[in-house]
Structures are given as structure tokens and as C-alpha cells.
């Protein structure tokens, strides 16, 4: 399934989901029911901004400042995947 993530929506982690740093793997990880996702640095940065305050557009801008090149679609595709699994929820104005 593909879900669309509106650029004005403000994503946040679902309340059943946690992220933390895993010393053994030297990565941020996302933990949920029967779920472990070892995040790459970009994914970890995106999720850290999923705080219910930043909009998708603002997250794209922020990532653009941190990395040479961030394609909008990649951020949105990443978030859409997490929304489909119910790990991220989107607040709408």
C-alpha cells in the first residue's frame, strides 16, 4: 500500500513506538510491537524531527541544510512507509 503524506502534516511517532541509540550496533533503532528497525543516519534524523511540531515541508528543509542533497520524495516515501506500518502518525491542522 502507498499512503500519501501531505507536506503540511506534522508527523510524530506513534505512542507505541520508541527510538533509542543502540550501543551494540552503533545506530538509532526504532522499537515497537514485534518490530526492530535499525535506522540509517538520515532515517534517524528524519525521525528525530517527527515531534508533532515540524511539518513535512520543514523536515525536508531541515534535512536539506544538513545534507548536500535531499530529495523531497525520499523523505515523503520514508514517512509514508512508516505511516503505513502505523509507527508514525500525522497531525493535520
Amino acid at each position, binding site marked *: 500500500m502507498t499512503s500519501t503524506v501531505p507536506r503540511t502534516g506534522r508527523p510524530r511517532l506513534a505512542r*507505541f513506538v520508541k527510538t533509542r541509540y543502540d550501543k*551494540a550496533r552503533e545506530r538509532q533503532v526504532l522499537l515497537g510491537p*514485534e518490530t526492530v528497525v535499525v535506522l540509517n543516519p538520515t532515517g534517524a534524523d528524519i525521525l528525530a524531527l517527527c515531534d508533532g511540531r515540524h511539518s513535512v515541508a520543514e523536515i525536508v528543509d531541515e534535512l536539506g541544510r544538513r545534507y548536500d542533497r535531499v530529495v523531497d520524495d525520499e523523505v515523503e516515501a520514508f514517512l509514508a512507509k512508516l505511516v503505513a506500518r502505523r509507527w508514525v502518525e500525522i497531525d493535520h491542522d
Partner: protein
Amino acid sequence: MTDGPLGLLAELTHACPLACSYCSNPLELTKRSEELETDDWRRVLDQAADLGVLQGHFSGGEPLLRRDVVDLVAHASGLGMYTNLVTSAIGLSRTRAEALREAGLDHVQVSIQADEPVLSDRLAGISSFQKKIEAARLVKELDWPLTLNVVLHRQNIDRIEAILGWVEDLGADRVELANTQYYGWALRNRSALLPSREQLAHAEQVTREWRERLRGRTEVIYVIPDYYAEYPKPCMGGWGARQLVVGPEGNAFPCLAAHELPLPRASVREHELAWIWESSPLFSAFRGTDWMPDPCASCDRREVDLGGCRCQAFQLTGDMGRTDPVCVLSPDRHLVDEAVAAANAPDAPSSPGRSAREPVLVPVPELVPRPHRAD
């Protein structure tokens, strides 16, 4: 260097108020007097966290029969693990549930056996259906994610639509509809438990419809019965690859059923978990693909299904090193085909039928229950 395990399944006890005929516990249940002490489990959790374990699953038997379950959940939670209680829900009182919430428990999995009390209680061997429904409601009330675990078999698979009705009513976040795996108790009861092809087709159709209906609300996981598959499952994501199990007596295993295999034991009473995971003969026995015989060794799928299940190979052929007999390429596939043929024969065991949430009048045939207790 071996990657660390992602999850630890802590089977705290084999004691259980239920007596399900497909129980995954060993035929020889560990006595309560032989169980690990609280401090042993704390040490195991510490060592597991050091190894890289991120998920702590507390199971049994019935983990709530351990008086220290709240302490152990708190300990695992303090180590940063995502903690999960796998329970029959018998003994999940409000007081206990609130203490577990306080201890940091992240997720609760409640088993249900059927859609209505008569069949459910019959399958569980104890009056329990109503308590399970109440406990599931309590889990939601306390704002936990709720998973309902349903083991499917010939005696309840026709009720799948009504079971999914409960999933919706209770607002479960996940449901695991898992066809029985035939080890131990379930293998002993296989002829009464293995569904027919027609039953499976119905269940899969209903599951497809309900997956759409529940989309965005409930994650629906359906585990096929591998006897009806062409290729084996990549059991546990590979031997000693992702998960480890520690039993009530302290023996560690790469999977739930591996206690049945003729391999040297690896006990947390005698060894560090890191040695057990990385170096013990038990965990090294079938890691990777080097151990494989043909047809696996030369097969394109060897990295896909990893030779299937060692326990199934052992239980059906007596040789744990053979290709999983479920595989159509296995020279032993006839062993599976014979069981499937019997499940589809005119004289196959009866089943209760599809009528939803109505008492079952047909007797459940010849099931051997596991004992309630392991004293």
C-alpha cells in the same frame, strides 16, 4: 564475528492454567522447583542487553505465575529493551496490570482459542474465555498496544470470521493468526489439528477481506501452515541469527522447539550468554549454510529458506541434518503429503463448523491436552 540477537524469549515457567493440545512447551515440562531464580534472570537480561538484545519477550507457560514477573519486566525495561508479555491473560488482574504498566511493560499479547466460550474453554482445558475478553479490554484501557494471538487449527479455523469480529470489537492493534506448527504436543495431536485444504482456502479468503476492513486500525498477520506450502519457512530467520530462547531451567536455544534435538545443552547457569550465542556447539550447529546437505547445498533458495526447520526435519525423519521434509525438493516430502492426504480424506476428524459465536455441539475429537501444571 556473529551479529548479536535482536530478541530474547524468556520462558519464565512451564506452569500454566491452560492445557492446550498444541502447546509449544516440551513434552517433559520443567518442574517449578527447577526454575531459575530472580537473580539468574536479572543476570540473563543484563547479558542479553550487552549482546545487543532490543526486545524482551516474557512468556511461558504462563509468565504471570512467576511472582517476580513485574521485577523482571522493570529490569528489562531499565536496560532499554522493548518489553512484551505473552500471556493467557489468566491472572492479569487490574492490580497486576497496573504494576506492570508502572514497571514499563510496552506491549501485551493475549491468546484466544476461539470465538465463543464453549469451544474456547474446551480447547484451553479451563473456563477462561470471558476472563480473556475482560483482560484484553483492560490492556486497551491501560493504553497498551494489544496483540491477540490465535493459534489456528482444524477445530477453530472455520470460526476465523467471528474471531476477527472480536479483534475489531476489542480494538486490537495486531492479530497473529498463526496456523499450528507441528512439534511436541501439536505433533502428537496432529491428525485432529491439521486443517483440510478447503478449511484453509476459506480462512485465507476471510483473512484477505478482513485485512482490508481493518486497514489502518489493526495489523493482520497470517502464518500459513507449512505442510501446505511448497518450500519451508526460514525458521527463526536462521539458526542462531536473530533470536534466542531461554527456558525456565536456564537452557538456551535458537528456537522454541529446539529442546527436542539431540544437541549438547547450553545453560545460562554454566555459561555467559555471549559464549552461548557466539561459540557454543548448540548455536553453531546449523548457523549459515555450510552444514547443508543436498538438495539444499546446491539449491538457489538456500539463502531464502536456510534449509527450513531443523526440528521438523528431526521430528519427521529422525535426522536433524536433513532438508526440511516440507520442501517439495526433499526426498522425505511423502511424510508431509501423507499427513495432508489424511487431513483431506473422507474419514478425517470432524470439526465444529462455521456458525459464529454459538455454542459448539460437536465434540472435539481425540485431543491430548498438555498437563495444566509442572509441579
